[in-house]
Every structure is written in C-alpha cells, then in structure tokens.
C-alpha cells in the first residue's frame, strides 16, 4: 500500500535504489532538464525563493488541469528537486497542494545528505509554493 501517488512512489523507489549519493545527484541533474523552465529573463523579486543559498525562482499557476509549476535555479540540484516537486503536485487543486507533505524528498534519501542549510532551502521552496497556493485559495 503506497502512501504516495504512484508517480511519486516510482521516483522514491528509483532514488532509494540508487547505488550511492553521486548517482542520486546524477538523477537530480536529469530531472532538472525536464522542468518547465522559467527563463532567467522572467526572474523577478516576486519569483525568487528567499532562504535558498542559490538563486531559485518559481512561478505557479492553477489552470484547467490544476497545479502547474515553472521554475529554475542556477543550482541543478535545486532545480532537480524543483522538477520532482512539479511532478508531485502537477494537476492538484490548491487544497491538495497545501495539504501535501514534503516528506517524499526524505524518502528519496536526498534530503538528509544535504546540509541543514540546503534542506532548509528546499523546505523554504516547498512552503513558498504552498503559501502561493493558499493565497489563491483566498
């Protein structure tokens, strides 16, 4: 019985089966390429995620098909985490987004190998997305 949606569970399995941390970084770099990229020209103070060591920008929208995230970072590791977050939340309603637990990243065995700073960076990003979603809830 999976507690995560299938597409996320698959990613969790893929990551936790990885040989070592370097392989996980490699996978993050690959996911990073798949993000719906927010071009640097679109970066503004409003898109910036504060509290990240690296520049990280996200823009979220709720269209007909629900949640969609565009984003980018000058760090591929952060952008990879962003991309997986985008997959996790894609199509959800604002309520679902605000209720989603960021713990899937721990289960990927990625977060604990990051330093507290960077783990915080990810959590900041996740909370920022949820805040934006909450705002849209009204």
């Amino acid at each position, binding site marked *: 019985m999976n507690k995560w949606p299938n597409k996320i569970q698959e990613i969790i399995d893929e990551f936790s089966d990885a040989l070592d941390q370097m392989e996980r970084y490699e996978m993050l770099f690959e996911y990073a390429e798949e993000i719906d990229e927010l071009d640097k020209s679109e970066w503004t103070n409003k898109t910036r995620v504060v509290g990240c*060591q690296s520049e990280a920008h996200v823009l979220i929208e709720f269209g007909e098909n629900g949640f969609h995230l565009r984003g980018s970072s000058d760090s591929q590791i952060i952008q990879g985490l962003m991309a997986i977050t985008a997959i996790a939340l894609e199509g959800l309603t604002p309520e679902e987004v605000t209720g989603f637990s960021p713990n899937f990243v721990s289960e990927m065995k990625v977060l604990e190998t990051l*330093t*507290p*700073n*960077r783990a915080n960076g990810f959590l900041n990003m996740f909370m920022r997305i949820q805040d934006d979603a909450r705002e849209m809830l009204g």
Partner: protein
Amino acid sequence: MNLISDMSEVRSQFPILERILPNGKKLIYLDNAATSQKPYFVINAMNEYYSKYNSNVHRAVHALAGEATEAFELARKSVANWFGLPSGGMVLFTSGTTDALNLCALGWAKVNLSSGDAIVLTEMEHHSNIVPWQMLAKEKNLELRWVDVDSETYQLDLDDFKSKINGAKLACIIHTSNVLGTRNPVEKLVEMAHDSGAKIILDCAQAAAHEKLDMSKINADFLAVTSHKMCGPTGIGALLISPGIFEQMEPIQGGGDMITEVFKEYSNFQENEHKFEAGTPRIAEAIGWSAAINWMQKLDMNAAHQHTLMLAKNAAEGLKKIPGIKVYGDHSNDDVSGVVSFLHESLHAEDIAHMLDSMGIAVRTGHHCAQPLMRRLGVTSTNRASFYFYNTIEESNAFVDAVKSIVERFT
C-alpha cells in the same frame, strides 16, 4: 531531599571534587557563587565536539559543518526552553552576564533612551550591572536613581523602588544577590516597573544557578544569564529578550555572520539573533552550556536548591554562634541562595581566608564586585562561603568548625 541519598552519585560526576590540593588537603569547594564546577557530561560534550565534529557553523555545505551548525542552533533552543523564553523572544549569545548587560545598555538603552531619562539601579547591584549604566549615563546624560537596601533586613526597600521607578525608563535589578543571598521579589518589581511604563532587566547570574527561571512567568523584558555559574563552560552567556524587543535594538558589533549583504557604501543586517552575534560564534561553549542544561534537567532543581539552602542555613547558624563573627544576610528567610557572607570583628577577612585555604577550604574574600553594597553594610569586604547542590552537610560542618578553630586559636 532525595539528592542527599544520591549525593555520592552526584559528586562522582564532578571530577574536581576529588581533588587533593598541593598541601595534601582534600578540596572543600565553597566558592560556587564565583563559578560552579563542571560534570564529566559537560566536559565530555566539548571534548566530543572538538574530537569528532569541530567545524565552523552556518553557510556550510559539508557534513561536519552541518553537524556543528545543528548542535549550535540546538544549544540555542535548549537555552530558550530551559529559561522558558516566550515564543517571539530571542536568545542572544554573549560572553557572559557582563557582556549581556552591556549588550542591553548599548544595543537597546542607547537607542531608546535620551538625555534626561532615568534608570533605576539598586545598592545591591554587582558592578557588572552598575558600570555599563554609568558609562551610558555619562554618554547620554541620563539620570541614575539608586534604590536603598536595608542593612538590617538585607532587603530592597520596595517603597523606595516604587518612588524611584516613577517616570523612569528602565530598571536594572539583581535577581539574587551574590553577597547577601537575598532573592529579590522580582515578580513584584517587574509588575511595578511595567505599571509605571518602564522596561526592566534582571541580572540573573546567581539566580540561574539556583532556580529554574521561567521568563514567561517572570515577564521581565531582559534576562542576563551566564553559563559558568550553572555547571557550564566559561566564555558564554546570553541576553534573553522578550517578544517585541528585538525590533527596538541596534547591533553594536559588525562583522561576519550578522549581515545579509555587504556593499562598500552600506550593509544590510540579518533580522534574527545573528544580528547581534558578529564573528565565529562560541561553538564549543554553546554545546557545553547546552550539555549543562541537559544534565541539570535530570536533576530535581527544586530539591537541589533545598539541599543547598539547608547547607547555607546550617553554616550561617553555626557561624553566628562563634564569638565575634557577624553574618551578612538573613538565612532565616527562604528567599536566599547558597551564599553566606561573614566577617570577624578583629581578624582580617583575608587572614581567615588564607587559614581556611590551608585547611583545603575555598571561600572568596573581597568586595565581591559590589562596592556600593559594601558601603551600605559599612564594610570594605566580607568572607563569603557559597554552597551548591554537590556540597555536603559534612562540608558545611567542617567549614563552621574550621572558622571556629581559627577564631579560637587566633584571638
């Protein structure tokens, strides 16, 4: 008083209590108000830091730095929890109580008081809670108002406090006297200060060692505390600030870790504790202090203090029976700490201290950094024995017997 049955267990955790002095005597350490001893638990925590995960903290991307940062910030949380910091309050690490009091003077009072404003002190204050205010008063043309101490009851004159606080902006009050042991009615003083619109800072250097302070109940705006008197290492203390205070403060030191961005023309500061902690922090010290707190958490602080009180009362009673000895402080009262100040009418305080030392008994002698209080008491110094929970009734008795034998032999 369970502590007493476990006394040998408690004492065995403090390596120094086994110390044999160069003259062959076993140490009886009664100078706890100057600094307490440290259990293995604290010593080992610092060892472990230096041996296993020593690293600079913050902005770090490697494992050691992560471990050190986590332990350092956890230490801050331990301190906050232990002192019952209300949420929205902050722990600003300093070198000790003195540094904390100076931080309050320069980081808060200098910014918020102006010429002609009044600060209320008491005659019971330690120099560390006097000199910073004198220096600030001189710089900003402030008025210092002194609250009387009754030299018979050894209590603050509350009526005098009431009249002095009227119209004042800040009260700087010692929570528990390092000379008399008097525990001031701080809850009442805080209320009176706030009623008249003044802020209040409590010097808790002594108090923190003896009671579990709860800032959310005491309700003071600032508490100044130190590690080295409560089983922790030297070199660290804190200014604890209530919610709303941070916004009124300006940094007094510039440097690494307290900024967000530095330009040639100006810098932006962090808006958290780090704003007041420039430079590489006291990492091992914070970890050691937090270990001391964890260790004391297992102790029943109340029972420990009752035990300490019992030892101090026993000593005070014993001393009073010795011809020519006067005790300064009211040990019939329960609002006292473990200090017992005394003088002999003809033997010089230092001579007595030397003789006690030659018997292995460590007491402190002098003005105890409280010269205005000494003047109020009409003396220039006292001998002071100060007890802590790891002292025993045998030590308290041995101390009294020693003083008695000195007086008998030398007068």
